[in-house]
């Protein structure tokens, strides 16, 4: 859970988050996220590496390589969208998965944790926005 440190969660808050998350291991070339699916789970790469593959006119293009510690799905968590790209493991990859409904329940019940969570997501989104322009 040290990957969430940039959110400045306290130890007890990290334990609460850990309690609602589960780990999954993917093999090389295994799909972690499929473009078009409706799933608002939030994922963190615990170890390994993934590629993000977007499609334009059905032509796949690798738009990003993400490594250990990266949070995936923050845009889709925030606004309900179909997944906008495939995410594929490029090596043995362990992912921590936060189920959307369970995370919402936790955030609604714990305001202090919610402030840190949304503040952290805001900074990630601002950083991404700034880099894109």
């Amino acid at each position, binding site marked *: 859970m040290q990957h969430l440190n940039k959110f400045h969660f306290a130890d007890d808050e990290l334990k609460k988050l850990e309690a609602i998350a589960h780990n999954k291991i993917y093999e090389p070339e295994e799909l972690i996220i499929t473009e078009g699916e409706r799933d608002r789970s939030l994922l963190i790469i615990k170890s390994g590496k993934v590629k993000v593959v*977007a499609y*334009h006119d059905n032509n796949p293009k690798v738009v990003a390589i993400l490594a250990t510690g990266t949070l995936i799905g*923050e*845009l889709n968590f*925030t*606004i309900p*969208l179909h997944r*906008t790209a495939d995410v594929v493991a490029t090596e043995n990859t362990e992912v921590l998965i936060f189920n959307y*409904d369970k995370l*919402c*329940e936790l*955030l*609604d019940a714990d*305001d*202090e944790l*919610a*402030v840190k969570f*949304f*503040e952290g*997501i*805001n*900074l990630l*989104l*601002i*950083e*991404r*926005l*700034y880099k*894109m*322009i």
Partner: protein
Amino acid sequence: MNVYIRQNNNDLLKYLSEKEVKELELKSQKVEQSPDEEIKIVTGNVNIIERGIVNILSPKTGRIVMTLSEGEVFGEEKLFQNEWSLFYKTETQTVFIKYELDFAVISKSNKIKAKLHAAINDSLAEKLMRLTQDSVRTNK
């Protein structure tokens, strides 16, 4: 489910109840600017366009990267942080409401603070989505 439910039409205050909006003791000011004017963004302020068009310009190249219109929030990236900021310019005669948030008041309620952050999450995510879609369309 969602974490919070929209309670009104204001995109900044959308998750706040009437009571929470009152607690916020929000100061607001109507601002009118002429076309082609820079809009100064101040930390702690958020703006909503009432009438007109505002462009977001790349701080690196100066080119227009997004166009905002009536009802849209801008300047939200600087509400709680000062590291990142965007550059805004009016395209037309523009009227916007500038909301000045009092951090001492916000800090009294984590629920209100979380709901404001969540609203800003939405606004930033929508902008990112638009940029991503434009980028895919132009196949950059």
